[in-house]
């Protein structure tokens, strides 16, 4: 039996560089872990000799309040960043699940693209600088603490979404933006034959909500109760005037979609929104697999329905979250127990990818995860990506096999 991989938690970039460099020279494979909250989005590394835990690399490096910039070590939990910034009236729209555990580095490495990105942009668009430990132990910096910088390639953004296969993020610098003063959420059960119309109405609002979802299932995880076709969850953020006008607009838009009652909640609106985001990757023990696909607005609802139809044919239970603003569809399929799921999931996965080749796995604690098409169809530029991996990590030291196309 293979011995358990050694686990280290370096406290500095230099220490991380020495450890990784030594592994690289010795031909040992390194798995990089943060809060493990988005682990299910990628494949398990094919071999692990050493687990490098980045969570000891935490804390603020520079909080430049007057510049609206912040530099943190990559192992810092998102919640720490959010709390610090909230006290200054600022935020960075990470919008990632489980912010108490999720690290800044892990969120960036996973390329997490949250529901408010249609309004505020992606997290990558707030990244103004980075420090990375490369496979050979080199420490490389990019960008800085200025909000505009075109000196050389944009290496910081380039590492975003690379799942630690190009380097280990040890520091990230951000620009921050003012937190909108007020937030309000809307909950509405959807009667029969209103789901598609509601999605269209929400996407067409003239004052764009920060987030708008059509949810089905996820009882106890996402607030509100399903009608015949699920429920609407929307979040708006802004001034008093915006809340007032947007509320009228959302109510009448949903009314036009045939949704009679809309509940408006101000207290804890953002926390309520965060529970939706948590649900994106929430697992029912080992009984579920969650798939995600980025369609464009208008296509997401159809995607979710197609995935649900395939699941139905495999007698799997489904729950879904459709992001009406960005066009993301997230579907969790589950069965009575891990064995029941295990018996069907591979054939389901195959059938699903025939219909939706780009569907990715968002979350799964199931033992069968490695045999699923976790990454979906490879991207058009896979060859370029493989060549980049070979140039950055020729010995395949970092997270081998974890990424798309065997990278």
């Amino acid at each position, binding site marked *: 039996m293979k011995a358990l991989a050694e686990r280290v938690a370096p406290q500095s970039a230099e220490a991380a560089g020495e450890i990784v*460099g030594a592994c690289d*020279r010795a031909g040992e494979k390194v798995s990089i872990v943060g809060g493990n909250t988005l682990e299910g989005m990628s494949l398990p590394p094919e071999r692990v000799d050493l687990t490098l835990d980045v969570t000891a690399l935490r804390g603020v490096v520079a909080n*430049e*309040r*007057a*510049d*609206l910039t912040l530099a943190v070590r990559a192992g810092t939990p998102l919640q720490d960043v959010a709390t610090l910034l909230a006290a200054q009236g600022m935020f960075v729209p990470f919008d990632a699940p489980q912010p108490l555990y999720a690290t800044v580095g892990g969120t960036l490495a996973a*390329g997490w693209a949250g529901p408010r990105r249609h309004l505020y*942009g*992606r997290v*990558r*668009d707030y990244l103004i600088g980075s420090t990375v430990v490369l496979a*050979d*132990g*080199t420490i*490389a*910096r*990019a960008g*800085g*603490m*200025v*909000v*505009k*910088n*075109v*000196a*050389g*390639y*944009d290496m910081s*953004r*380039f*590492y975003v*979404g*690379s799942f630690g296969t*190009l380097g280990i993020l040890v520091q990230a610098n951000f620009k921050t*933006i*003012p937190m909108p003063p007020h937030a309000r959420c809307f909950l509405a059960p959807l009667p029969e034959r209103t789901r598609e119309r509601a999605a269209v109405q929400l*996407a067409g609002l003239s004052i*764009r909500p920060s987030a708008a979802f059509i949810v089905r299932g996820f009882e106890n995880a996402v607030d509100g109760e399903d009608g015949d076709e699920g429920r609407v969850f929307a979040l708006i953020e*802004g*001034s008093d005037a*915006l809340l007032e*006008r947007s509320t009228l607009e959302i109510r009448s838009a949903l009314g036009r979609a045939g949704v009679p009652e809309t509940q408006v909640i101000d207290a804890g609106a953002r926390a309520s929104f965060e529970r939706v985001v948590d649900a994106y990757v929430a697992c029912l023990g080992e009984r579920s697999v969650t798939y995600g696909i*980025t369609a*464009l*607005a*208008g296509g997401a609802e159809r995607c979710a329905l197609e995935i649900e139809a395939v699941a139905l044919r495999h007698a799997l239970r489904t729950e879904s979250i459709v992001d009406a603003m960005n066009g993301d569809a997230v579907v969790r399929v589950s069965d009575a127990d891990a064995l029941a799921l295990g018996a069907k999931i591979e054939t389901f996965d195959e059938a699903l990818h025939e219909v939706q080749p780009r569907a*990715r796995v968002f979350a799964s604690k199931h033992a069968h995860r490695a045999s699923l098409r976790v*990454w*979906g169809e*490879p*991207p*058009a*530029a*896979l060859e*370029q990506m493989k*060549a*980049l991996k070979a*140039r950055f990590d020729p010995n395949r030291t970092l997270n081998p096999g974890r*990424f798309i196309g065997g990278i």
Partner: protein
Amino acid sequence: MLRERLVEALGAGAVKTEPEDLAVYSFDAYTDGGRPSAVVLPQSTRDVCAIVKIARDCGEPIVARGAGTGLCGGAVPMQGGVVLSFARMNGVLELDVANRRARVQPGLINRELSRYAASSGLFYAPDPSSQLISTIGGNIATNAGGPHCLSYGTTVNHVVGLEVVDASGEVFTTSLDDAGYDLTAALVGSEGTLGIVTSAWLKLMTLPEDVRVAVVAFDDLGSASAAVSAIIAAGIVPTALEIMDAVITRAVEAAFHAGYPTEAAAILLVEHAGLREDGESCEAAIEAIAREHGARSWRSASSQAERDALWAGRKGAAGATGRIAPNYYTQDVCVPRSKLPEALRAVEAAAAQNGIVVGNVFHAGDGNLHPLLMYDRRERKQVAAVVETGNVILQAAIDLGGTISGEHGVGWEKRDAMTRVYSTADLATMGRVRDVFDPARMLNPEKIFPSGTQCVEVKAP
């Protein structure tokens, strides 16, 4: 051989090799450049592929060129090479209103896209001052900014996917919607050294319902910049915060009659966009901070025409300096926003010491300075003084924690300054990306990377 093959592939009308034609393409808005071996005007992605293959066979480097408004010599070859002009690939290929996206060709003029999308209630946010002539392809190459990047972000935030011809003449595509490495981010701002963009999917934004522009007068540049730092520090990020000093304002007024007060030592141009109901209170909050920092007057534009005139003046500022001196050199540095007053003092001191007239017109909210150094190219002493002044300003920005380019790029001009902000390891890491996309260094060679590091090979110790 080169000419014959290019003509055979694209027709004589697409190939220029006459000396007078080549001379035109040996300049951009920077002063220095070499003469290309040939200039080619492709009409399709397929043409671009053919050109790249022919150039490669003939051992000629390739320099992609938009409108040639770049200020760092990024779009001119240093010696020989094929210049690929996108003047004939300048269309909007697709407008997807529901998803607020447009697919465009690289030669499309920046401003044309917003014009095209306006009837759908949409606009393209990055708006470099050159937007009436500069192209999307060039904007992508430099990751161009502009006044409105303060709240909307630079070009990279607005590119969702690219079609690219690589150094071997093959096409590949990138998309933010796809899983995998963010090749879009690597390509935007790579100044034509990693690939040649042949079309781009761009993000459009919804036109705001309420836009307010105010002109604020100050008695000195220091107070104006302190006001900007204070507005930012208060957590207010308007859509634009631009400063012009008296040198610039007078030139602008003489050229455009835009409505700027010429007696003020410094002008702050504030734009705020949002909901109708919020306009007044937001404006009041900004005005209060400006007044605390010595604003002498605050005048809001009362009509769209007045707002347009103010912006036309602001964006035409550099050109208007032709009234002050025959030539100007624009420095482009970015500092942390709280360091603006210090950075401006450094600019003033550097210019005074070298006897150079300086005009300041810049994206203050981003900490992005653009001192315009006035001179006469025919006077060798003045040229030397300008070079020295620019250099001192560059170093001052670096010493304040800033960078050597906020939005214009590195190009040929600043390649050797890269070592002042990046270590050898940092540059070698960028070099690894280059190794993958352009191992033979045939795409816009001698740009970005410091001289002598073209073939840098860094191996683990």
